[in-house]
Structures are given as structure tokens and as C-alpha cells.
């Protein structure tokens, strides 16, 4: 590896982080947007380069301050982290490029420097969690990303965001505190914070009670932050009242980073060290995943607000990811992990399109979006394309994950058929809720005073870029699948 390449794991976090401090010093006249977008694009480039390095060879490790682990903090980038990094930085970059008009409409000019700074902090925090190989360091970056997300969500003109974000803050803090209690208990029994070292040393711990309690605290805490059903109640309102571009960014990646930590911790540290943990992991999470899929989709079918509809659909999608993981097989994990990527493509594009609709509509409800298909044909076309991917129509990215998920369920034999039925039923429900939007947008009565708003070209372009990635990765899914397979193999390599 050449000079700069070996430092990329550190730069992935440090660049957006230090840039966030520079952004608040900028003169607030458009410069903040340009700087933030440029830094986000640079992070995306770093993520792409890291992915290429990971697919080319061995996983990357980095010793912060040159101190060897476990005495110093180590970073590690493997296939799973690379996939998440692509999602985080890609979603941030695409949303930011298209975001300018929407953010100008929603946030006063003199407050924007804080907003953009918080955006970069969210990118740095999420990336910091994903590259870290140290349990306490993950907590520190969880704090940064959570605080920054609360700020971003509360930033819009809709004051209902404040009670929503307060609920999210309380729930998120409980989740993070549970995680910290769990890490503290493990530290008490092993004396280490490095994940790989923890895995080795837990094996030698004979008194298992603290470890068991730690496993409980960490799993519940992270499930709360990941909005796993039934711990999702903070999510719908937070996504609904957030500024539209923030929803597009966070819906694509925020909860998935918590799922990532959950998978990492459970498979690397607990699975082989606790008796029957594999069974318990599957037995507790699979019913929750199924309920999440069915309830989330069902609520979405009857929801009147478009953003909340898509938010409930996200609860169902998190269920798919958990369902794949709870199968505890290579095929199941691959399907779950690839859905992290594919769902981000579909949901990111859908929320971006809603952001464009909001430039013309007074609110994003079925009654008020009538005729939007004629007013914004291009944006609407991309919306339909991303909607097809969310449903899982062949040729789109969504199909790839559902296909693999069904394949993994069939491996179980006859009981797997029930899981296949769940997946098919919820896909039909997705057809219903996407069709309701399409119907209202095409055939709904347009309000008399429909404003003549042109969607900014950059935003339309970005919506189309996001929508077309759904087709590209639906037809040529090699990259995400290869990363997911490798990640699944690495996770399963830690199971007895």
C-alpha cells in the first residue's frame, strides 16, 4: 500500500470532522453549502478507494497515534464497513448536491452554517462508528452522530419536529446508555475495549453473569437505536417533521449503522462465547423481524402523510434486514446485508423526490399532492422507478435483496415457506402503498392555485442519479453482493 492509502481509514473520519469546525467560520452566503458538498464528495471518494482496497485484498487496520491495540485505539475496515461507508457518504453527497434549494426554503440563511456543520458531524460520526474496532470509541462516535442528527431533525420550519426530536433524544440516549452499561460490564470482566481482544478474553471468563447482562443491554440498546420493531416508536415522527433533505440522508443510513454495530458485536463477541446465544439471537429476533415487516407495511398502507408512510415502510425494511440476519446462514446474512445497501438506494431516492414535491405542495398529504405528476413529470418518473425498487420488481435493486432473502428462507425447508409468504405479503402491501401515492399524484384533483414551481435542475439530476442506481445495481449487483457475501462469511467465521 502506498503512503496515503494506509491513512485512509483515519482520513475517512478526520476530514469531515475537522471540516465541520471550519464551516462555522465561513461567511454564510452559499459558501457553506459548497464547502460541505465538496467535503462530502471527498469522503465519498475516500470510501470508494477504501472499497477498492478491501475488494482487492486483506482488510485494512490502522493504529491511532501509532499505539498498538489494545493499548491504543485501532480502526478496521472490512467488507461490511466498506459497504456501510459507501451508503453513508454516497447518501450524504447525493442529498447535499440536490439540497440547496430545499434547504434555502426551509432554513434561514444566517442559521445555515450551523446546519451544514451538523451535517458534516453526522457524516463523521456515522463513518467513525463504522471504521472503529474499539467498543468505547464506537460509543464516542455514536454520541457525535446522535447529537448531530437531533440537531438536523429539529432544524426545519415545522415546530412539531421539536417534540418528535425530544422523544428521539430520550430514546436514543437510553439506547446509547444501555450500550455503554454493556461495554462497562464487559470491560469489568475482561479489562479491554478492543473488539478483537474482547472476543479472545471473554472466552476465558468463567463467571458469565455479567457477560450475559452485557449481551442483553447491548442488544436492546442497539435495537432501540436501530428502530427494530417494537422499539421503533421514535422513528416515524422524527423522519416526518425533519427537513426533507435530512430525511433523505438519515433514512438511507442512520439506523443501519446501529444495525451494523449490533451485527458486529453479536457475531464477533458473543456468538461463540455464550451458551446457546446463536439460538437465542434467532429465536428472539426472527419474530420481531416478521412482526416489524407486517405491522410496518400494514400501517404504511393506511397512512395519510407521505413522509410518515415511507417512515413506516422503513420499519418494515429494517425487519427484512433483521430477518436475513436472524437466519444465521451465509445466504441469510448476505441477503440482509445487501438489503442495507439496496434499501438505502430506494428510500434515499423516494425521500429526495418527496423533497422536490414539497417545493410546490403546501404539505405532503394525499389530499395536497394531486396533479403533482403533471407539474413535475421528471421527478415523478424517478419516484415511480424508486418505488418499483422498494416493491422489489425484477430488474431493480430491491428485487436482488428479496430474491436472496427468499432463497435463504427456502434453505430452511418447509418452515421457510412461511417466511416466503411473509415476504410476498409485505411486498404486495408495498404495491398498495406505492400505488396509492401514484394514484393520488396522477389522478388526484389539483388545487386551484397550484403554484408553478420548477424543480432545480441539480435536484432533478440527483433524484434521477439515485433512481438509476436502483436499476444499475438491479442489473449488475456484483459489487454489493460480493461485499455482502464476504461480510457474511466474516461474521459467520466467528460462530462456533
Amino acid at each position, binding site marked *: 500500500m502506498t503512503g496515503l492509502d494506509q491513512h485512509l481509514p483515519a482520513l475517512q473520519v478526520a476530514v469531515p470532522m475537522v471540516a465541520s469546525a*471550519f464551516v462555522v467560520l465561513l461567511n454564510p452566503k452559499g459558501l457553506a453549502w459548497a464547502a460541505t458538498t465538496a467535503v462530502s464528495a471527498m469522503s465519498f471518494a475516500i470510501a470508494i478507494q477504501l472499497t477498492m482496497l478491501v475488494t482487492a485484498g486483506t482488510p485494512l487496520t490502522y493504529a*491511532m*497515534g501509532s499505539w498498538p491495540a489494545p493499548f491504543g485505539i485501532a480502526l478496521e475496515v472490512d467488507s461490511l464497513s466498506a459497504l456501510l461507508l459507501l451508503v453513508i457518504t454516497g447518501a450524504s453527497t447525493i442529498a447535499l448536491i440536490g439540497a440547496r434549494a430545499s434547504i434555502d426554503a426551509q432554513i434561514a440563511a444566517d442559521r445555515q452554517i450551523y446546519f451544514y456543520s451538523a451535517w458534516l458531524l453526522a457524516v463523521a460520526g456515522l463513518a467513525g462508528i463504522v471504521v472503529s474496532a474499539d467498543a468505547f470509541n464506537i460509543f464516542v462516535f455514536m454520541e457525535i452522530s446522535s*447529537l*448531530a442528527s437531533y440537531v438536523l431533525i429539529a432544524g426545519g420550519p415545522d415546530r412539531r419536529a421539536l417534540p418528535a426530536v425530544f422523544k428521539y433524544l430520550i430514546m436514543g440516549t437510553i439506547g446509547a446508555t444501555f450500550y455503554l452499561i454493556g461495554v462497562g*460490564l464487559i470491560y469489568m470482566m475482561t*479489562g479491554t475495549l478492543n473488539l478483537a481482544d474482547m472476543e479472545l478474553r471473554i472466552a476465558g471468563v468463567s463467571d458469565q453473569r455479567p457477560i450475559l447482562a452485557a449481551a442483553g443491554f447491548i442488544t436492546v440498546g442497539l435495537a432501540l437505536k436501530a428502530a427494530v420493531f417494537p422499539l421503533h416508536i421514535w422513528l416515524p415522527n422524527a423522519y416526518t417533521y425533519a427537513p426533507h433533505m435530512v430525511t433523505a440522508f438519515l433514512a438511507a443510513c442512520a439506523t443501519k449503522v446501529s444495525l451494523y454495530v449490533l451485527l458486529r458485536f453479536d457475531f464477533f463477541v458473543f456468538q461463540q462465547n455464550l451458551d446457546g446465544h446463536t439460538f437465542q439471537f434467532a429465536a428472539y429476533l426472527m419474530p420481531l423481524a416478521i412482526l416489524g415487516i407486517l405491522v410496518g407495511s400494514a400501517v404504511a398502507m393506511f397512512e395519510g402523510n407521505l413522509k410518515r408512510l415511507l417512515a413506516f415502510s422503513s420499519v418494515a425494511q429494517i425487519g427484512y434486514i433483521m430477518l436475513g440476519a436472524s437466519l444465521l446462514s451465509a445466504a441469510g446474512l448476505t441477503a440482509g446485508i445487501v438489503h442495507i445497501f439496496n434499501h438505502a438506494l430506494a428510500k434515499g431516492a423516494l425521500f429526495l423526490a418527496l423533497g422536490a414535491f414539497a417545493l410546490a405542495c403546501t404539505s405532503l398529504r394525499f389530499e395536497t399532492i394531486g396533479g403533482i405528476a403533471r407539474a413535475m413529470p421528471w421527478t415523478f418518473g424517478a419516484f415511480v422507478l424508486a418505488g418499483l425498487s422498494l416493491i422489489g420488481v425484477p430488474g431493480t435493486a430491491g428485487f436482488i435483496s428479496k430474491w436472496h432473502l427468499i432463497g435463504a428462507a427456502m434453505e430452511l425447508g418447509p418452515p421457510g415457506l412461511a417466511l416466503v409468504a411473509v415476504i410476498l405479503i409485505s411486498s404486495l402491501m408495498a404495491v398498495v402503498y406505492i400505488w396509492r401515492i401514484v394514484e393520488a399524484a396522477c389522478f388526484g384533483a389539483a388545487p386551484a392555485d397550484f403554484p408553478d414551481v420548477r424543480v432545480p435542475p441539480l435536484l432533478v439530476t440527483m433524484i434521477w442519479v439515485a433512481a438509476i442506481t436502483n436499476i444499475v445495481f438491479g442489473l449488475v449487483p456484483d459489487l454489493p453482493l460480493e461485499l455482502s457475501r464476504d461480510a457474511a462469511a466474516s461474521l459467520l467465521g466467528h460462530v462456533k
Partner: protein
Amino acid sequence: MTAVFGIFLLTLLVITAVAIVRTRNLFVATMLMGIASLLIAANFFVLDAADVALTEAAVGAGISTVLFLSALALTSDEEKAGSSRRILSFLVVAAAALVVIYATFDKPKFGDPEAPVQAHVAPWYIEKTPEFIDIPNIVTAVLGSYRAYDTLGEVFVVFTAGIGVMFLLSYRRAGHTPTSRAPDPGLRHHLIPRVLGRFLIPFILLFGLYVQFHGEYGPGGGFQAGAIIAAAVILYALLEGEERALQVLSRRVLMGLVAGGAILYSAVGFAGLLLGGNFLDYSVLASDPVKGQQYGIILIEAGVGMTVTGVLLSIFHAFAAREQ
């Protein structure tokens, strides 16, 4: 003896916690929170964790009480009779507490030298710090160098909190313009607080600087020093009025401190990278690696102190500006 003090302090802490939950008056709750923080700080001190004790006392009992009071000035003293489901909350808390108690049955004995925490990483820190960094306070070595990346993260947590509060409190409804009022006179007309306060401020500032620059030798460092220096300025603002405090440290200067501290810390990290080491590797900062480590720690502690002072004061002013 430690056990006796510990049980005494923890019992008081439980009583205070119950009182905080039960009181409906938010002013009383704020004062009790300050007491709870002091009790925790005393408990840390009994356990020989002087660094965290100092932080808890300065931040928990000192600054956060002032910030809670500033927030209370914007709202009412009494908690609204809410529709909160108290029984459900109680059950969740009770369940979590039971699990923690269950976990403690197998925990290593208090003060056991064979405990995993004492036997794995800690001996390496104690053995190697004189050789690599050569400063007496190993806590500072761990926080400032071995785990400097965590501390950098914590500085950015403080930074995020600061810009978050400034962002949220700067929201004004469209068409709403702030009404200008006569400047707040503070306690200027009260002789005794003013004389006493003026007498105290220089000593508080001096103590803050001592804590900042003595962190390598004794308990202290940038976090504690930042909180103490901010406390001195807030005391000045309370005595002389917020306007006068802003004349001393204007919003621009504060913003410079907030961002500058975070940038200084990151810059030390990038300097290590440019000089051929890894990110946050201080050994390459000077020809002698041990000296390099010491320079690095002094610089990053300065960055921490700047950001913490700036953020705490900015939050205080953001609340005070909202009152007008």
C-alpha cells in the same frame, strides 16, 4: 474506611435521586441535581479518581446547574401535570436495575488486584508511560495520547452540543423581530455579591489556568480548566450584566474559541500524519519522541480548553439572548 465513606455517599445519592424524581418544582430539581453531582464527585474522589471527580464537580455541579437555571428562566418553575405513564417507566427502570444487580453477583471484588481491569491493559500503561511519555499523571497520558482519538471525539461532542444549541435557539418565527430592552444591570447594585464576586473572579481564573497547565503533573486538564474558566466569566456576567460580559468576550471571539480549539486538536493529529507518523502520533512532533509526546499533549489540552470554554459560554449567552 473507603467502604464506609462509599456506602455513606451512595446512600445520600439514592435519597437525592428519589427526591429529584418526586419533586414537581423544577428549580428544586435543579438544585438537587447539583447536590447529586457533588456526591458523585466526592465518591469518585474516595475511589482515588481525582481527574473525573474534578470534572464532575466543575461540569455537573457547577456549569450545568447554571445552564439549567438559564433554561428555567425561559419557562416555568413548575412541572406540568403530565400524562406520562409513570408505571411503565417505573417497570422499565426496575427491570434494568434488576439486570445490573444480577450482573454484579459475579463481579470481581472491590479493590481486587487480580481483577481483569487491573491485570490486562493497566500494567502496560503504568510500566510504559515513564519510557514513552515521561509525565507523572498517567490518566493524562491515557486520555491525551494512548486514547487521544476518543478525547478528540469528545471535543467534537462538546462542539456538536454547542453549535446545536446555537442553531436551535437562533430560530425566530418569520416576521418576529427581537425587541431591544435596556441592558440587564445584573447584580451591579448589590454591594456584597459584587465585592465578593470581584474578589473571587481573578482567583477562579488563575485556578483555571493552573488546572489547564498542570494536567500532566496532577489531576486536571483542558475539560476541567475550560469549565472553571467559563464559570469565572459566567460569574462576571451575573454580577455585571450579560452585555458587559459580551464586551469582554464577544460572540465572534467565542465562535473562534469553539471552532479554534477543535481545529487545533485536529491539526496536531494531521501534523503527526504529515511528519510521517500515524494520525495523532505525537512522537514525530520533535526530534526526541518523548518531548514530542509532551508537546502534543500540551497542544491538544489547549485545544480542549478552548473549545470547552467557548461552547459553555456560547450556550450561556444563547439562553440569555433568548430571554430578551
